[in-house]
């Protein structure tokens, strides 16, 4: 039986640049274990604030970086150092592309 869903406008929460995500939340969203996120931190791919793991707070953009990192790792078999390099280069390409006309 098909249930008709009523369309009300959903209002979400924008993940801001500030201290948006805890380690636990980031793990959940990326569906990975905490160790995988901590590896990204150790490699400098993610830069949370806070010194102890329990106090880590991640930038809203970490979600995109982390998910891209895991995809590159899984799909292309790149190790973490390579992923870090790829992410930096991709970011640079994106910047250059957006400036290409100037």
């Amino acid at each position, binding site marked *: 039986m098909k249930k008709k869903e009523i369309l009300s406008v959903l209002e*979400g*929460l*924008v*993940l801001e640049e500030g201290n948006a995500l805890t380690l636990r939340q980031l793990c959940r969203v990326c569906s990975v274990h905490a160790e995988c996120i901590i590896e990204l931190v150790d490699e400098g791919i993610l830069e949370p604030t806070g010194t102890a793991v329990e106090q880590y707070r991640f930038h809203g953009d970490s979600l*995109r970086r982390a998910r891209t990192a895991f*995809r*590159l790792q899984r799909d292309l078999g790149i190790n973490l150092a390579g992923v870090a390099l790829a992410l930096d280069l991709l970011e640079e390409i994106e910047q250059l592309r*957006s400036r290409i006309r100037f």
Partner: protein
Amino acid sequence: MEYKDYYQILGIDRKTTQDEIKKAYRKLARKYHPDVNNATDAEERFKELGEAYEVLKDPEKRAAYDRLGADWQKGHDFRPPPDWDAGFEFSGGGFTEKGESDFSDFFEALFGRRQSSDVRHTAFRSQGEDHHAKVLIDLEDAYHGADRTLNLSAPELDSEGHVRIRERTLKVKIPKGVKQGQHIRLAGQGSPGLGGGPAGDLYLQIEFNPHSMYQVEGRDVYLELPVAPWEVALGATVKTPTPGGPVGLKIPAGSFQGRKFRLKGKGIPGKTPGNLYVVLRIELPPVTSERNKKMYREMAEKMAFNPRAGLGV
């Protein structure tokens, strides 16, 4: 259903060794990975590669696939011959280990679809999975905010544990001030929880449609503004578009090609709003009339100007 030529997809022939298959796959995967390649069909290509590799990397699946024969051509209408897989034993039940829901019908006809046997049957309460989707908006939406209607489909388990695709439509408020790549979290819009657990969340990643006039970098917006030579030389106040509506821009006398103006706070709004950068591009008046031609000639005669003086000629 369409026959898929997995060898052709990986650009190899039927005699290729397992090692070479891996190399071919890796090379193409790097090229077409959607995080690396911006082309609109990259994702499609990448999925195709994944499917081809899934079959050819596995000697059992490859042998079974080869047995279909080499006479098939890409795109042929395909029906699996009866008992085509007789005599083959697939480890793992013949299902793909990845359980990707988006392999083609062709793949599924041959190697099956991931079954519910693979799905966790949890007796305890657990939160539903989070879902991810991209939402395309226009730059103007980031300035003013907008409502977007999204059509999403997600695989879901029904009460008997079968996977089925649930289609749904959501209307989502895009708040003013969002940036490219930013995420919006919609609590409770992911998969339903198990055993009465809470539902997962839906994360929407914001992507901007390419704009014909503006380029966006973070919250900063760039515009190339065409100007007449005399506006640049003599100074002028010209009307310039911005995503928030047109404004007047004062060009000082003696400006030049590529001069950049910063309109503070006219970028994407936010706690710290971005800036709008306007870069001048001099447009020459076309020489379509005798009158214009005459004026150019007059300039050539009366203005002592050698644009190549700096080159020493």
